[in-house]
Each structure stands twice: as C-alpha cells, then as structure tokens.
C-alpha cells in the first residue's frame, strides 16, 4: 500500500509537471504537503488539499479540462458508499491519488481517487448532541486529522487509518461539538467550535499539528474588560453563542485569518441580551502571526440578531474589479439572505445584495409568533460560493423560505439542550432556492435561476466557464457561468448538502460530490422529497455516496 501510494504520488508529480502547473511541493522527498505547498495549493491541479481548495476559500480552478463545450458528456466514473446514518457535508481531500472523506458520524474513509476502491476505514461512534454532520478532514505529515461530534480532535495514520493521537478539544463536551474541517496552517490546525444553539460560547482554537496540544483560543464573545463586552447586558455574554461553524479564509502574506462567528443566544429572545452582542454574526479578521491571536477588524452583519441568521457561508478572499478598479475583497453570506462584499483590508462594506426574500426582519419574535423571511435554514447556507475572475462574478446558491418564529418568556440553560428562548421557526409558505451569479463590478445580479427546491451545495467554478453546484433534490448541475444555462446535470437520487471538488489523476480531471440522506434541516418532506430533479424524478433512497465524474 505504501509503495503504491508513493508511486501514485510520483505519477501525480509527473502529470503536474508536464501539464505546466507543477510546483516545488511534490517530490520524491516530500511525501506530504509542505507549508509552502498549502500556500500554493491553487496552482496544484492534481490535488485538493484544503477544504475549499486554497487558503482564499475560493473553489475555483484554472486550466480545467472540463469546458462548456464538453461538460455535457461528463460521466460518472465511480461511486463509493459510506455510512448512511446522516447527511454528507464533506469536502473531500485528495492527495497523491488518495481521497479522504468522512461520514456524518465521523467515520473516515481513504479511497483510491481513480477507482473509488476503499483503502482503509476508521469507524467512530460519537455521542451526538444535536445532529450528525462532518465537513471533512485535514491532512499533513503522514496524518489525517478529524474533529468529532463528541468534541475530540483525532490524528490518524494516513497510511493505515489507525489513531496516532486523540485529544479532547472542546472545553465543554456537554454543549460543544465539531462539524468543521480542521484547517492546517504552518505547524497548526485551526478549528472552530460548534455550540451556538446549546448555551456555549464560540471559539477558534489552534492546536499543534504534531501533538494535538492546544496553542491558543480566540473566544468570539468578549469577556469583562475586553473591547465589545459592553454590547451585552448583564451576564448574558456568558452564554452568548457565536459558534464558529463555517470554514476559514487565510491571507498567508499577513497571517490574517478571516472567520465568521455565528448567532447570539438565546437565539430568539433578544430582551435577555440587550445590545449589539459582539462578535456574533460578524466577520472578524484576526492576526495569527504571534503567540496569541489579535483582532485586526470586524464587521457585524446583523447586530442583535433574534432569528438565528448567522453568516453561515465560509469567507472567500479574492481580488475583484469594482467599478473598474481592482480591489482586495472578502465575500460573506448570511442566513438572513444577504450576500456581502467587504474590503479585505478594512472590513468596510463595499456592497450587499439580498439573495433571498427578506420580510419582517426588524421584528423580534413574539410569544404569539411572527413571520419573517428567510427561514432559519434559509438565505446563504454553509457551503458558500465561488469567485470567477474570468467573469468577475461570484456564484452563490441561496435558500428561499419563510418561517414563523416564537419566543418564550425565559431561557433556561440545561446542559446538552437547546438554549433558544423560543422555538426554531416552522416553515411558512414555499421552500425554493436560487442559483445566483453576482456581478462584482456592479453589485447586481449577472443572472439568477429560481429553482423549485433549496440550494445549498456551494459552488465550484472553472476558468473554462463552468460552475458546478448541487441541490437538496439530488441534482448535481453544471451551469454556464456567463448565461446561467444548465449545461449538464446528474440526478444522484440523494440529497446534496456538500460542496463539489476537483482533481486530476491519470491525465483526467475528476469532479467529486458527496450525496446522502437529508440532514435534520431538510428532513421534512416539503424540503426535498417533493422537489423533482430536473428530469422530474422523486428518488430519495437512504444511501450515502461519494461520486466522481470525468470526461469519457
């Protein structure tokens, strides 16, 4: 196995070199990506080594084989079944011909990226606090790193799948779990804590990748004496929320990490936490070059949120042309239905655009119940979008739903239970979605497609003018980046809640997508089962599969 993998690695290096996009990162001496290789990940078409391909968080590839002309002939090359007890939200990591994926319950699989054949399987049986989901692994130094639903960070031997070390990485495992994909940066693994609806306080942590030792925490809620603490009334900050669910973007030239902190708590009862509630619902730029993290700037998208409208979309750093001049930008999206473009240097808003129906947003939920749009599962969801320099457009799916929110008179903290001060909203009206293309030059839609089902599959764009995304109806779809025309689609028969990836192996470009059962957010039949595929099929078997597609 070892020899075979090394051989594939050498082959990948050879392919990368002859195709003219090779870098110094792969060589006979370097079996695993170096710190420089992560920085140059964008130029490596053979592999996919970071959650969203590169530190910018932008799922964009140049020099693709797949084009608008040939995408119509794309065929499924292989499928691999994984544990089907929950939704697949994984972004596959591909390195030297091996693909590393996770199931919702933290099983890790190493697959042959050419054939889908199983190399090893690491089973795991975590206690589930609220729902099962995992967004994938990180790799480095012969290890595969996974953060789990029971609050652990585990390093596996990348060749065998056997645990090397296993640490408890959550401060309170009764209310905190991990869904995020760890992000390797220099000698660290960066990881955000998911605890924002169960009475915890969010934090971004750095762990030593060699040992799992905690290096630092950056808490999303400022404590007494810290700037921003006065945006919380009384002791409300202590269970203020601000979970870090989504991915990170990193500017390696300045060691700045861009991170989104989630909604405040209790989610639907704002009267108990008067004030803006920093840094919930904010993007925060943090300097991580030193021993301790330092805030550079922040922008709060929705101050004092009472609808669980956190900025679920992972940040995307890019250089775009705004009104004719190139600017360093960072994109964000929130469940309140806003797509945001900020100045990456200052956090100043360049513009924002509503990508979902917005109604009743300024009314705090009452005990009787109030309608507001989007629904808590609406707006821009956790897989985000992609910027394509070739069209100067940003491609981002959105969910269009409304909900009825109800608050309660009090919020009582009970370990392991929701800390909401109300109830999650009931769906009100139709449940649809959009695929949006936003013209970065103007801040207006280049095009948008209204779809009969929610759209949360993220976006993968290619310089050849093709944009891939997946819907909860199971359709994996390729759009024409310029026109929005559907060029190709494949009904997987399962729910797609994962982002697409791509890699090149054996001279062929593959596109990979994970599909499985609906997650708790989309389990209601009205969210998915009633939504036809583009071919009018209604097929949702309980299976979970990784599917790879390639040109014939």
């Amino acid at each position, binding site marked *: 196995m070892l020899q075979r993998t090394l051989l594939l690695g050498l082959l990948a290096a050879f392919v990368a070199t002859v195709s003219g996009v090779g870098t110094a990162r792969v060589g006979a001496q370097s079996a695993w990506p170096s710190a420089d290789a992560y920085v140059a990940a964008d130029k490596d078409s053979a592999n996919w080594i970071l959650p969203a391909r590169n530190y910018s968080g932008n799922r964009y590839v140049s020099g693709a084989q797949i084009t608008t002309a040939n995408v119509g002939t794309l065929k499924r090359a292989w499928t691999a079944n994984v544990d089907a007890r929950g939704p697949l939200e994984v972004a596959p990591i591909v390195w030297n011909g091996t693909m590393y994926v996770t199931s919702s319950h933290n099983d890790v699989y190493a697959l042959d990226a050419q054939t889908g054949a199983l190399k090893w399987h690491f089973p795991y049986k975590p*206690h589930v606090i609220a729902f099962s989901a995992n967004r994938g692994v990180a790799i480095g130094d012969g290890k595969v790193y996974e953060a789990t639903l029971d609050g652990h960070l585990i390093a596996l031997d990348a060749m065998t799948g056997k645990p090397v070390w296993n640490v408890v990485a959550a401060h309170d495992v*009764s209310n905190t779990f991990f869904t995020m994909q760890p992000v390797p940066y220099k000698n660290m693994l960066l990881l955000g804590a998911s605890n924002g609806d169960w009475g915890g306080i969010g934090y971004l942590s750095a762990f030593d990748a060699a040992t799992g030792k905690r290096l630092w925490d950056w808490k999303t809620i400022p404590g007494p004496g810290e700037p921003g603490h006065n945006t919380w009334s009384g002791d409300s900050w202590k269970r203020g929320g601000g979970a870090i669910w989504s991915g990170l973007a990193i500017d390696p030239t300045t060691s700045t990490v861009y991170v989104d902190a989630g909604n405040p708590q209790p989610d639907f009862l704002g009267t*108990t936490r008067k004030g803006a509630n920093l840094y919930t619902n904010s993007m925060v730029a943090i300097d991580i070059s030193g021993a301790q993290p330092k805030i550079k700037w922040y922008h709060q998208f929705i101050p004092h949120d009472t609808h669980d409208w956190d900025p679920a979309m992972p940040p995307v750093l890019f250089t775009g042309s705004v009104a004719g001049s190139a600017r360093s930008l960072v994109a964000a999206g929130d469940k309140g239905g806003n797509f945001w473009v900020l100045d990456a240097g200052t956090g100043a808003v360049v513009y924002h655009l509503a990508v979902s129906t917005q109604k009743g947003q300024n009314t705090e939920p009452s005990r009787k119940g109030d309608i507001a749009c989007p629904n808590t599962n609406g707006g821009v969801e956790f897989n985000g979008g992609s910027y394509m320099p070739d069209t100067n457009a940003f491609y981002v799916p959105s969910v269009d739903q409304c909900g009825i929110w109800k608050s309660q*008179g009090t919020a009582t903290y009970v*370990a*392991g239970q929701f800390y909401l001060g109300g109830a999650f*909203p009931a769906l009100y009206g139709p449940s649809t979605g959009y695929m949006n293309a936003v013209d970065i030059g103007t801040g207006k839609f280049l095009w948008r497609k209204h779809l009969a089902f929610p759209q949360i599959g993220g976006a993968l764009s290619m310089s050849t003018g093709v944009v891939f995304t997946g819907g909860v109806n199971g359709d994996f779809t390729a759009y024409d980046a310029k026109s929005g025309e559907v060029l190709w689609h494949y009904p997987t028969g399962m729910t797609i809640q994962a982002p697409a990836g791509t890699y090149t192996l054996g001279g062929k470009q593959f596109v990979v997508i994970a599909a499985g059962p609906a997650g708790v957010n*989309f*389990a209601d039949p009205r969210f998915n089962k009633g939504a036809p595929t583009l071919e009018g099929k209604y097929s949702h078997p309980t299976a979970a599969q990784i599917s790879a597609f390639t040109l014939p």
Partner: protein
Amino acid sequence: MRTVALSLAALVFFGSSAPPRPARDDHGSAMSALADVRAAVAEIVRIEDGYAVGHGAYLRAAHRAMNALVGRRDDGYAPSFGDPGDGIGTLGHLDRMLDQSGSSLWTPAVEGAKANVLAAAASLQSSLGQKEMEDYEADLTQALASLALVVGRATETGVLGGLDGALANTALGVPAGATTVSGCAAPNRAPAYGIVAGRLAYVALPRSSASAGIPNGFAVSRVEVAPAWVVLYAPAARAAIALCRAGSRMRRMRAVAAPGAQPPYTAAQAHAGSAIYRRACLQCHGADLQGAAGPAVAGTEFLTNAQHNKWTLGDMRTTVFENMPFSNPGSLAPQQYADVMAFLLASNCYAAGTQPFPTAAAPTLAKVKLGPIHGARLSNPRLGTCSVR
C-alpha cells in the same frame, strides 16, 4: 340537622350580647375558602402559563397567591402586592370552621384541607427565595399539588375528599337556613336536604325551580323525578342510605396511590405514538431510536447522557413539543406530541400507568429526572431499549 342547631345557637349568642359576632355559616365559609383557593391557583397558573420576564412578576404572583391563602391576619400577608381573594383567606375561613367544640363528619376533611393550605403556603414561601426558574417552578408545582388536595373531589369522602368531598357528601353542603330532612326516607317537601348522621344523601328541589340550578358545592350521582320535585342524590348517597337500613359500616375507600416521580403516560398513548414516531421522527432518529441525522432518543446512550446532563422529563418535553420535528417545529397536534412522548418513555422502559402524558405544559414533569432504570425488562439489552406494541 347539626348545622341548623349550631346556627340557632349562634343566633342566641348573637342576640344576647355584644360585641356581635357574625352568624356561623360553615357552608358559606367553605365556599369562601374554596373561592380563595381558586384565586390563588389562578395566580399561579397565570404566571406559569404566561411569559413574564423578570424576577418581579414571579415574586408578585407568589405573594398574591400567598395572600389569598393566608388572609390579612397572617404574618405572611404582603398587602403591597394586592390580594385576589377576599382578605380573610382560605386559612381564615377554615380556622373559623374548625373553631368549635366537638367535631362534625366534615372536620377531618377541613383539618386535612388546612394542613394542605399550610403546605402550599410553605411552598410559596420557599419560591420567594428561589433564584433559578426551575426551582421556582418546582415550588409552585408543589403548591398547586397541595391546593389540589385542599379542593379535593366530590367523589371522595374524608380527608381524601378535601372541601369538595365534604361539601358534596356531608351536612357541610347544606346552605345556612336551608331545610333538612331525614335522608333515610324519601323527601316529603322541597326544597330540602336529606341528611343521615351528618352525611348528605340528597337534595330535593321543586320541579318548578329545579332548573334554577344545583346548590353550590353539590355534586349529583343520580336523579329521581317525582311529581312535585326532583331528587338529586349525592355521590355518597348509597353509603349514607345504607346506614339507615343496616347500620353497616361504610366501605373503606380505596387508598389512592401517592403520586411519585414516575413519568405519566398510558400504554394506549405509547401505541398511538409509535405510528407518529415512524412518520415524523424516524427519518432523523432511526428505527432503533439510536439516531441518524439526529441524536439517539432512547436506550442506554440516551438515558446515560440524560442522567449526566441532569435532564428532567420537562426538558425532554420542551425539546419535543417546541423544537421537533427539527425541520418543521410545532407541526404536530398537542395530542400527537403527547403520544410521541409516551412512545419515547415506553421505548426507554418506563412503566405505563393510568395517568396520560399531558398535552399541556405541566410543571410536575420537571420533577421527573431521566436516567437509566434499574431492573427494567429490556427488549434489546444491547441498546437498552424496550419495544412498544
């Protein structure tokens, strides 16, 4: 008969000297005591069913309930919060009833009621010092349970019957000034109350005015229509009349099991809940209830975690009723939610009983702590679950 005699004695006393003392009216006192209890219960229910924010509203409710119960002569009376009762308080009325030489058939019931009023007042007093909502609610729940015993029920006699039982089954049910006759014979006039050794057997009402209503506090077990009057038999009428014929002893009332920390639900509910679970919950929580997209909801995994996190049945109810199904919360009817709760309790090997799982929020559920059940007969020992038929 005794009531009339006492009333006459009071009248004599009233007429002979000053200062005047109000005429003794035990029936009226009992009715007033009940009105004060209801006022207190209304205060508690209002605050527990409401959504008041802040400590003040809860303190105020507990004080007002307390005022209605103890009356203004008690040290616990806090006039600044107002009094939803009549100022004499349940305790004042009961004390007046008990302030007599000798005892009536209804004395044990009234003494029991008084003990339960004091217990309720102690719970309310305790609630005033609570800082956690849960503790406050637990105290109020205890107060409500005590007050339920004060009110009692018309179908029970003695201590278990409370005030309603005494009013419906003893001479306490006879209003001041009303005519009483021997309950051993059919009525020969109307209106009249049939009494047997202090027990109330019936009330006879003229047909012309029977529709004017049943006397306050009276409960009817059987109705006889005669040419001139209607005879309404009391719940314990058979027992009272049996005394006339054979002098036999009243059968001992079956003791009612004391409510423990056992989750309420019936087997029929669990059965109904099984189908609802399959339709609305199974997709995320699994056919074996061990979780899929959602977490485990039964068995060792669930109960061990529940115990570790100190979950009560009330916590579980809140999550199920308020936030499930996760993708469309509140979409089931209250009865369906209650049935699902019953199914989950049965699957977790709790024993079924006669009390159904309530459709409305019940503070008593916060007293039931969840955790593995020792000695449960598991259908699936590996998962620690019980199958539901």
